[in-house]
């Protein structure tokens, strides 16, 4: 009875969760209002890859649509549906266009909601980065001509980095040997990243794009353990 009563009350296990998710979707960017030409060209495109368009949700982008021309939404939606696509929203339209789109039950998408398709594939590799910071460990000497890039995390090198070699990381770089090559920390602009090294004889050190070449590294900091970091956007090298 107790079980029954509980399930009938409002304390039942939640029936849904509200979550945000990002999707990569094809965007059809309209360049002019000539529906006949559009129908012909879309038809040709779909013929090349019919499977790609079947049941594919698409967004209509009006950002490049010429002002003063009316979008014939009923025709357009019918056309896209006819080719198996599911038009579900518009973006980049003006007020009148948005009203017309709403009348066709299309969603109005903010420009920020969907970035241009070029930038769209990027979120995918970013997701694991936010979850678990990756960590790269190198135990053999990094030789001249070799490049090591620790994407999304720290890099530790338990050997020397030779002249002509390059180590880079999105996070910090730790070098427990001699650094004779180049080291670039905070490769994606993280200004808090640092370089730690046992013996600095580098050709170049850089944090988040602020760099110093060998010539500008004071002699008393060469050959000693140091850390390299950004202080008010100024690259500093300090003995540790």
């Amino acid at each position: 009875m107790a079980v029954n009563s509980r399930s009938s009350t409002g304390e039942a296990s939640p029936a849904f969760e509200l979550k945000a998710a990002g999707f990569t979707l094809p965007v059809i960017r309209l360049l002019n209002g000539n529906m006949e030409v559009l129908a012909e060209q879309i038809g040709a495109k779909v013929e090349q890859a019919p499977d790609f368009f079947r049941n594919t949700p698409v967004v209509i982008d009006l950002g490049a649509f010429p002002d003063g021309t009316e979008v014939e939404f009923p025709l357009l939606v019918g056309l896209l549906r006819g080719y198996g696509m599911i038009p579900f929203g518009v973006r980049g339209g003006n007020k009148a266009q948005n009203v017309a789109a709403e009348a066709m039950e299309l969603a109005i998408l903010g420009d920020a909601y969907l970035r241009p398709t070029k930038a769209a594939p990027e979120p995918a590799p970013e997701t694991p980065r936010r979850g678990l910071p990756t960590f790269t460990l190198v135990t053999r000497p990094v030789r001249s001509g070799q490049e090591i890039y620790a994407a999304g995390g720290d890099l530790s090198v338990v050997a020397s980095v030779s002249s002509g070699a390059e180590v880079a990381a999105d996070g910090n770089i730790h070098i427990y040997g001699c650094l004779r090559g180049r080291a670039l920390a905070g490769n994606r602009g993280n200004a808090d990243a640092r370089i730690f090294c046992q013996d600095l004889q580098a050709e170049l050190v850089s944090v988040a794009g602020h760099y110093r070449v060998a010539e500008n590294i004071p002699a008393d900091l060469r050959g000693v353990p140091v850390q390299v970091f950004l202080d008010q956007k100024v690259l500093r090298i300090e003995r540790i």
Partner: protein
Amino acid sequence: MSRIIVITSGKGGVGKTTTSAALSMGLAQRGHRTVVIDFDVGLRNLDLIMGCERRVVYDFVNVINHEANLNQALIRDKRCDNLYVLPASQTRDKEALTKEGVGRVLDELSQSYEFIVCDSPAGIEHGATMAMYYADDAVVVTNPEVSSVRDSDRMLGILASKSRRAETNAEPIRELLLLTRYDPPRVETGEMLSVKDVQDILSLDLLGIIPESKAVLTASNAGVPVILDRESDAGQAYSDAVSRYLGEEVPHRFMTAEKKGFFNRLFRG
């Protein structure tokens, strides 16, 4: 179980061919069946250093292209029965070396030889990468000067990333440093990098130090591997290196300048 040894450096003129000739002769003299292969297709020299240039009929490229079999191309050394030379082709270029072809020849050789010494051409291009691709051990020949050290370092990077052992995630190639043309008096005056300087940069096991010696040029011109000149310091140093390669513990010699004797000092201009 045969071992494939590549003699490499990146830089030219540091003594790869001299070393290939000396080490292969040294290994053969100690009773190991050894073959030495010239990978410098188009610029072959090993046959001259080994003194067998007048007996070349077929070459490495002929064998790769199935134009001759191995036994037709291999030249037996007249001084040592255990040593064979596989000369390079002088008329072709490095592209004639294919990964499959080289692999097949090395495979066939490993059936009957204990050591296969590959004399790499200079550079880091096709010829050099073919020479090192199948290697088990690498002898990195380096002169005590900065450009040679950097080139060796570059080559070590390639050994660690582009060899068969690297590509198949097998145990890495055993890398050994051979410092050649070492001139202790010039090291003492600071004109030349010291063994320690080079070791600091390359951090490798030291196979040997070959002193700068007139005997090397004389031996090369005569077509005699310098290791056969037992009187010379270079010959003795190579002999020590062979011992070390075979696992013996031999102290390093020729690292310091010989003290000048009383008469030398007296008559010094």
